[in-house]
């Protein structure tokens, strides 16, 4: 069935990119001019008056780097027996771990429940481990989380934290046909789960408008060129070589994905002549983490700080059913060489409660979240950005350059 031309996925199909973050627009080589007017659902007049983002390098309070735990085959959700212990894996969610967490937890907990345990262990307390633990409690189990670090210290809180369910989640070929259906099930389950956190004090889960600014009109682009011959692929090199290898499943959930609106030229507070708006869900790490921890503890959950060094150590736990959620660390802990690091960096500026929107311009995204104005720069490599880079050292120059782009986007901004 042809998609209606105003879905954001048209752009993605045209560009061969994934429904990515920040999105909103984001990652994918959303160079100026990409996207299409033809696909705009409607042209609208004046934008609401907005408070400006105060983007300047002296307001940077933190720079966070994180490695997306990317598996070309998609997240690992299979099971294995270690002696008398049933291990259910739940790791390797690439750039979609926040988004798919509930659905993935539902799958893992279903497998655990089939073994009828009264008590369950969860390894890891990132967003995957914590949601797995809470889901297991909701299914009636007593849960202990064994983890090296508590939630607020995990890689999960170094992410962007937007609804990006198919951002670097798999490569189309190695993941195979069947994964698309599983992905859809996880995405839909998660989407519904997040709804129960909307409107709570502290906005653990929230929606914001995202303005995409451009110096050129948004025009539909032709199909992205095929990668140059001889470049190789995952199949021939063991590493993805081109953005076109990354899976995109967004069309499967087009019915729950908002479209976008294009503003008449000059009708917005931004100086940029071409502005388009869409809406996206995002997660405020501190309050959302707090709600999750609260539910876990109120239901009798226990946390034990512990570091595992060998898979066999899991068999020594008193719980005989374990959901394994170490994230990228599975590369070491489980010797999973299929895990590929995908580096990403975000700068966090002083929070601005009066700002409640995001922008994307010149390969940089900015989103005002409860715990800060988050600014993330991309270098136009699309889904290949950061692939294979396992450095978690912050690069301040990279963040300063991104903040500069946002600062400039607010030059000539019309107040009130």
């Amino acid at each position, binding site marked *: 069935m042809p998609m209606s031309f105003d879905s954001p996925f048209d752009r993605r199909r045209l560009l061969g990119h994934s429904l990515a973050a920040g999105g909103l627009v984001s990652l994918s080589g959303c160079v100026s001019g990409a996207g299409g007017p033809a696909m705009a659902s409607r042209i609208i007049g004046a934008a609401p008056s907005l408070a400006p983002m105060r983007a300047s390098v002296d307001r940077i309070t933190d720079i966070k780097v994180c490695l997306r735990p990317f598996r070309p085959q998609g997240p690992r959700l299979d*099971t294995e*027996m270690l002696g008398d212990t049933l291990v259910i894996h739940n790791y390797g969610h690439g750039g979609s771990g926040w988004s798919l967490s509930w659905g993935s937890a539902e799958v893992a907990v279903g497998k655990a*429940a*089939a*073994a*009828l345990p009264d008590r369950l262990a969860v390894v890891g307390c990132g967003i995957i481990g914590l949601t797995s633990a809470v889901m297991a409690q909701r*299914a009636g189990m007593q849960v202990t989380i064994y983890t090296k670090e508590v939630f607020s210290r995990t890689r999960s809180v170094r992410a962007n934290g937007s609804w990006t369910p198919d951002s670097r989640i798999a490569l189309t070929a190695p993941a195979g046909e069947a994964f698309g259906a599983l992905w859809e099930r996880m995405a*839909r*389950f998660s989407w519904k789960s997040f709804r129960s956190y909307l409107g709570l004090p502290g906005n653990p889960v929230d929606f914001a408008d995202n303005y995409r600014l451009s110096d050129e009109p948004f025009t539909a682009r032709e199909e992205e060129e095929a990668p140059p011959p001889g470049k190789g692929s995952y199949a021939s090199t063991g590493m993805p070589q081109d953005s076109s290898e990354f899976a995109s499943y967004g069309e499967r959930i087009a019915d729950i994905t908002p479209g976008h609106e294009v503003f008449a030229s000059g009708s917005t507070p931004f100086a940029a002549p071409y502005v388009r708006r869409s809406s996206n869900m995002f997660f405020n790490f501190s309050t959302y983490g707090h709600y999750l921890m609260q539910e876990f503890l109120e239901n009798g959950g226990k946390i034990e700080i512990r570091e595992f060094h060998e898979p066999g150590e899991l068999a020594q736990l008193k719980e*005989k059913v374990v959901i394994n959620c170490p994230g990228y660390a599975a590369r070491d802990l489980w010797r999973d060489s299929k895990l590929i690091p995908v580096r990403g960096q975000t700068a966090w500026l002083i929070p601005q409660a009066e700002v409640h929107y995001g922008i994307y311009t010149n390969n940089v995204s900015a989103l005002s979240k409860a715990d800060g104005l988050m600014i993330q720069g991309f270098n136009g490599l699309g889904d290949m950005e950061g692939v294979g880079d396992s450095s978690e050292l912050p690069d301040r120059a990279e963040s300063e350059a991104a903040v500069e782009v946002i600062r400039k986007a607010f030059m000539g901004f019309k107040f009130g």
Partner: protein
Amino acid sequence: MHRLAMMFAVLAAAGSVSSAAPPAPTPGRYTAEQAAHGAQVYAQACVMCHKQDLGGDFDTPPLVGRFARNWADSNLASLADDLHRTMPQFAPGSLNAQDNAAVLAYILQANGEPAGTQPLPSDPAALARMPFKP
């Protein structure tokens, strides 16, 4: 030990354990033909809510995994009766006794129980002597 054996059975059914699965305790409380008929009933009356893989979704509970835990301490009479009284949700009670037993056989199969030579009865007294997990 019992649980462990069952764990193997479940895994083997899910295709996750290739070998070394111990023999299932009491094989065969339904026939393969019965489960195949149950699959047809399922495709007509259940799949739209409980989904192809019986995994359900956010609004509909799964009929595998968590489901097994929910019913582990009950017997098949209770489950068959519950099924008949409440499902399919849009037309409860519309399955005849034969279809009801068949769809239950299909659910047992999906939960890792092997087929045998005797069909699953629909007589409540007989079902009452069968624990959910043999």
